[in-house]
């Protein structure tokens, strides 16, 4: 099953992908969805999640460590956020 979601890239990720915001049709499984988005924008999406960037789902940053079968819904927003963390 697929869903239509809004995908956003912020700061340097917008430069890297050449996109700030767009609507995409992706698999409803979260991890499959980010693989599709990664392939589309040439971003090593899954490998760098949590080390190079984080994802906000509808503004809430719980994406890291989600259940493998987490399902996205139509009109959800996935925002790709460059990571910040204390040393």
């Amino acid at each position, binding site marked *: 099953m697929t869903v239509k979601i809004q995908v*956003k890239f*912020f*700061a*340097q990720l*917008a*430069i890297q992908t050449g996109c*700030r915001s767009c609507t995409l049709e992706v698999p409803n499984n979260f991890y499959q969805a980010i693989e599709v988005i990664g392939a589309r924008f040439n971003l090593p999406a899954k490998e760098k999640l*949590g*080390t*190079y*960037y*984080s994802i*906000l789902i*509808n*503004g*809430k*940053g*719980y*994406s*890291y*460590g989600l259940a493998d079968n987490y399902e996205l819904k139509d009109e959800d*927003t996935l*925002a790709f*956020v*460059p*990571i*910040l*963390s*204390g*040393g």
Partner: protein
Amino acid sequence: MQWFGYAGKLLYVNLSNGNYEVKELAPEQAKKYLGGKGLAASILYDRLQPGQDPLGPENLLVFATGPLTATLAPTSSRMIVATKSPLTGLWLDSNAGGFLGREIKFAGYDALIVEGKSLEPVYILIEDDRVELRPANNLWGKDTFETHQTLKELHGPDYRVAAIGQAGERMDKLAAIISEARAFGRGGAGAVMGSKNLKAIVVRGTRGINIADYQKFVDYVKEAFNEVAIHPDTGGGRNHYGTSVIYSFINEAGVHPVENFRKGKFTGTDTINEEVLRSKYYKKDKACSSCPIACSKLAKVDEGKYQGKFTEGPEYEDVWSFGAQCGNTDLGAVIYAEYLCDAYGLDATSVGNVVGFAMECFEQGALTEEEIGYPLRFGDTEAMIKTVEAICQGQGIGKLLAQGVRYASEQIGKGSEKWAMHVKGMELPAYDPRGAFGMGLAYATSDRGGCHLRSWPIAQEVLAANRMDPFSVEFKAEFIKSEQDLIAVIDSLGLCLFATFALSLKQIVGMLSALTGIQEFNSGEKLMVIGERIYNLTRLFNLREGMAPASDTLPERLLTEQLAEGPAAGQVVPLDIMLKEYYTIRHWDEAGRPLPAKLEELGL
């Protein structure tokens, strides 16, 4: 004693009698408090009698560097100004980069301590051993740009300057000290300088710094530069976008406060965001001394009503304070407002906050058009600028607003106290803790009042690998406590907080130990104990000044009013639970007083 890293000397200047004295830095003081914030805290705690008027001659103004200041270590430009704040009546340390810290250290001093009050306006001139008070009557009334220019023309471009503008001269509680476009902004240190009739300090230093183990130090520095270069923030986004690198995602996460913390999401992001700043306004990147990140920007407005206006910045906090906080969507106006604050010497974060407060007062009927002189609604950019100008010039309603949101709300009354977004008198900055609970605890327990620079859990709650759920109280107390201690260390060393995104404590310990050769600094654990000692000392300072423990709180709005929209919709900050846990972890009693056993353990 041979010092490494440190200059080993403290310069005391007494403005009342015009004398100065150079004292040795005591090794025990350095080992116990590092430098910078810690050193200043020990000096203020020992020398300032409790209960003094912050704007009286007895108050002290301490300009302190850290052992790493002015070295090769990346971002080692930083220094602090500490005093008793006229805004909060409590402890204040205000941190800035730029070049002043380097110059003070090269002149041969770890700190400059200013005491007393001059009868006439003066500036302090320091050229290595030579220290003089010079008349500043011709500078009084000038803005900070003119003051810098006049002093640099007189003494030379290599002389570093820190000055107050007209706001400091008037002793407005929001007055800042400006040093070459960097601000010791928060808490009113500029007013303390004005109260002493001290217009500026001018410093030129030509000495070097001794290094205990040169090769080791250089190796650690190289490693640190590499870490900073490869980190996605310090090696990429922060250089490109400045501190506004976080702008869009803070708003996306519902943490960007809107219209005096009444709304959960800003809709003006088509015209205000980091991309527009970079492509349309930034003209040049700038860096503080020894900094490879260069997050500072020179921004200029090319067209429209504010054409030709420029500023160094604007920083993320001020893009918020003159943007979403006032409902303004014109970045040109943000740049002009920040320029005004820099010129007159004011804290731009607090000024934007207080303008948003006045807008709410107007919309709620607590301030009338007659009292203000014009309608002052959210989203009215022209009215915002008029109000900023009034604050800068100390005229009309601006005279009141320049004393900060707590004082203004007390004078206005009519229930306006509940729209005054401050903690302990310091205006809140650009994060709504209803979207990140830890930030609420960080504000409530910050040693200088409503500030995000004592702990910034946003990184962990929202932006990092989501190690903490923003809407849970779990781990918050523990995290805030340890980050406050860590940041007390960083602020005492002379490093920029942004470096800590990339550098580990181990790397910092490596640089510090190789630089100073001091055994007491050779592990992260030891430094964290020093950080804890410093945070407890500033707590003791505040308690001695009569701070009520009940002031470890948040504005009522954040505790009781739910946001209607955005990711934080329906949330309020469950502060009590986190605060109780925080006191326990800190070994403070129920009233927030450090327990005797903890003080003994810390050697206080």
